């Protein structure tokens, strides 16, 4: 055998009392880098080896409490700040209802952190390259023996004297453990390259299949294809194959109010004026009249607008006939039109039409003022 590096020396026992006694002696001899291996934890070995109690509980405490705090903050923020909703008449922050989740998060944080901390940080596992693996010592100690190993890095270690010391403890057997030969793993070995290639194929194939195929298959397609009709698509449900349908007869647009006297030239009934001729109403009426009515009827209702001559002149609004119209009749004429005058229903809202009516009435009164009216105006 080539000159291998020594890891340590071991001794095997097959009785728990013997190992306890031996361990005490090793500890008294002043060694520090040594260990006892056993197939199960031996009662009393901790004392014999003078091992301090484990500090793992501190990790548990820290992470457990963090879990508690994090859970409470999460629930407080989501339920009271970000999107508060009144559920069951309870306050946004209901501690009794938050307790179960808090408890569960505490437990999971505490347990997972403890186990991971123990294996990864306290033990340095997973690690299958330790010198004791695959030795006769390890096989025995796994099965039904108890062993002591003193490592070469211990300051008091000397291959000969330490081995003698171990023999003095009356073990079943002793063994010198060497570090295993380092295995070379060449990078470009065909099997390894094939393995990498295989992984690359599997991952890319898998990703492609997932993103380009699976995501489009119901029900994994995130409701991309739904059994509803969107505009401009067809539908087998209807006989004419069209998805888009006309509204049913008699469908009325939202906000639409049917004008009961539509199409009648001489209605027997008319609507009554719901608006008082307040200052605002008359000002509104004036604005709308000047915009929509004055081009034909003129600014004061005389029928002498700037379109006179180019366009059939409307009759004056101050005629006997016009002055005797009911308010609703004037409204009717604006709404359905009369002779050459078209319907102004699409240009002027109902509100505005009534305001115009009030304004026209004001004009008519102005042009046919009574004596008391004149006196009233003169006095101002």
């Amino acid at each position, binding site marked *: 055998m080539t000159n291998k590096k020594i890891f340590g020396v071991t001794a095997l026992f097959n009785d728990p009392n013997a190992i306890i006694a031996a361990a005490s002696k090793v500890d008294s001899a002043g060694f520090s880098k040594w260990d006892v291996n056993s197939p199960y934890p031996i009662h009393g070995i901790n004392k014999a080896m003078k091992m301090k109690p484990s500090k793992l509980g501190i990790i548990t405490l820290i992470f457990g409490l963090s879990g508690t705090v994090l859970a409470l903050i999460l629930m407080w923020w989501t339920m009271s700040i970000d999107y508060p909703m009144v559920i069951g008449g309870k306050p946004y922050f209901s501690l009794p209802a938050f307790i179960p989740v808090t408890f569960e998060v505490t437990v999971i944080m505490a347990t997972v952190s403890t186990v991971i901390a123990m294996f990864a940080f306290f033990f340095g596992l997973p690690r299958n390259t*330790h010198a004791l693996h695959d030795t006769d010592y390890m096989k025995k100690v796994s099965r039904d023996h108890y062993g002591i190993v003193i490592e070469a890095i211990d300051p008091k270690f000397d291959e000969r004297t330490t081995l003698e010391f171990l023999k003095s403890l009356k073990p079943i057997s002793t063994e010198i453990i060497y570090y295993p030969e380092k295995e070379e793993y060449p990078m470009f070995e065909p099997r390894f390259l094939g393995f990498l290639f295989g992984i690359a194929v599997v991952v890319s194939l898998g990703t492609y299949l997932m993103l380009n195929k699976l995501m489009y298959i119901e029900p994994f397609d995130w409701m991309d294809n739904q059994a509803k009709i969107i505009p401009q698509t067809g539908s087998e449900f209807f006989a004419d194959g069209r998805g888009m349908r006309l509204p049913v007869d008699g469908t009325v647009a939202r906000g639409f109010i049917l004008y009961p006297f539509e199409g009648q030239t001489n209605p027997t009934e008319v609507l009554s004026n719901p608006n008082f001729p307040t200052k605002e109403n008359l000002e509104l009426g004036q604005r709308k009249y000047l915009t929509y009515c004055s081009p034909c009827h003129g600014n004061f209702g005389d029928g002498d607008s700037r379109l006179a001559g180019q366009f059939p002149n409307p009759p004056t609004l101050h005629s006997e006939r016009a002055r005797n119209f009911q308010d609703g009749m004037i409204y009717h004429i604006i709404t359905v039109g009369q002779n050459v005058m078209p319907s102004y229903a699409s240009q002027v809202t109902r509100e505005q039409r009534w305001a115009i009516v009030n304004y026209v009435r004001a004009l008519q009164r102005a042009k046919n003022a009574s004596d008391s009216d004149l006196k009233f105006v003169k006095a101002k």
Partner: protein
Amino acid sequence: MSTDYSVEASVVAGRLSLAEIEELIAKPLDTKPDKKFFIALTISGSAVLIGATCLLITFLFGIGMWGNNQPVGWALDIVNFVFWIGIGHAGTLISAILFLLRQRWRTGIARFAEAMTIFAVMCAGIFPIIHTGRPWLAGYLLPYPNQHNLWINFTSPLIWDVFAVSVYFTVSLIFWYTGLIPDLAILRDRTSSKIKKTIYSIFSLGWRHSSRHWVHYEKAYVILAGFATPLVLSVHTIVSFDFAVSIMPGWHTTIFPPYFVAGAIFSGFAMVVTVLVFVRKIFDLQNIITVNHLEKMNKVILATSMMVGYAYGMEFFISWYSGVQVEQFVFINRMFGPYIWAYWIMVSCNVLFPQLFWFRKIRRSIPAMMIIVLLVNVGMWFERFVIVVTSLHRDFLPSSWGMYAPTLYDAGILLGSFGLFFTLVILFTKALPVVSISEIKAVADGARPTHHRGEHHD
């Protein structure tokens, strides 16, 4: 037959040596599966296929394939969920609680019971997911940030269930795996097959049986057991909250949390006994899983049966005492209404038959205990059925009353869950040691040093 109380009873019978223990427990892992194994697997596998088919039909055609209706909106889906979660509780109790109580007899059965917990929770977890109707959107149950600022309702017991069952599954898995590591190391060191050695090496993480590791390991085990105990109590408590936070008569009653926990332990232990009776025979483990173990479990079954009986009695008394008419009606309806048969199956299987365990001979007789524990499993399923269905089918408004009957698909899925459970158990027996080798070695005769702690007593 008089016991000598001054001597502590052996946990492992037959004065087995450490090597013999190892050989005995590892034997199924070394031998190829035999015909009986494949027959058993075929039976349980067929049950799984039937269940999977029924599930597929449910996914394709919707929850309408089940018997759920108005007013019975929750039926076999929830009954099966609570049933399986309950079964899982025995494992953690044996593992964690008996560990904290320093009951050494748990060592023969802990590994198996923990595995049963994990399998039972897997079976249980299927039900809340499938009963949502669109199980592929199950991710919506978790609090992930999204553009709509939508969050889950943390105050809903259904969400508490999501957290509780996930945490329970994870912690049980971790607890089980942590306990497996020394055993995997033992298997690694005794196997001659290269593939097995690689697998065991990877999963044992390179465990070296070092005492400097054992000291932290033992502490971690105590911590895990210390957390698993309140966890297991909390899981079935939270499941009971699904019902108890409502205003439904028959559901809204404060005793539900401890009552459900006791019932879970009760049904769980019954299932453990059911399976262990077979396992110890098939794998020749009679010296490790002794009749004493079974007797102790039967005592626990007796005790929890009486706790369940107490809860039945208290619920009934308080429903009268409360003077609330709907409460009183629900209990009369349970006992004498259209589901009278379910109620009396429940009471006889859960309270009456287990009383036979007062007799030592029956506690220690394998055929007798098999019958009783099977009846307990049936009775506990019916308890959940009675609680869910009878409370829903006739509640406040008589005009809303209705009846419920499960469909073929309900039954198929239930059968499938049993199939899944037993398939996993059967596979487990051939893949991993069913008893914890290192723990049994620790409690074998002669495993503890016989040191004297000074002179004392007389």
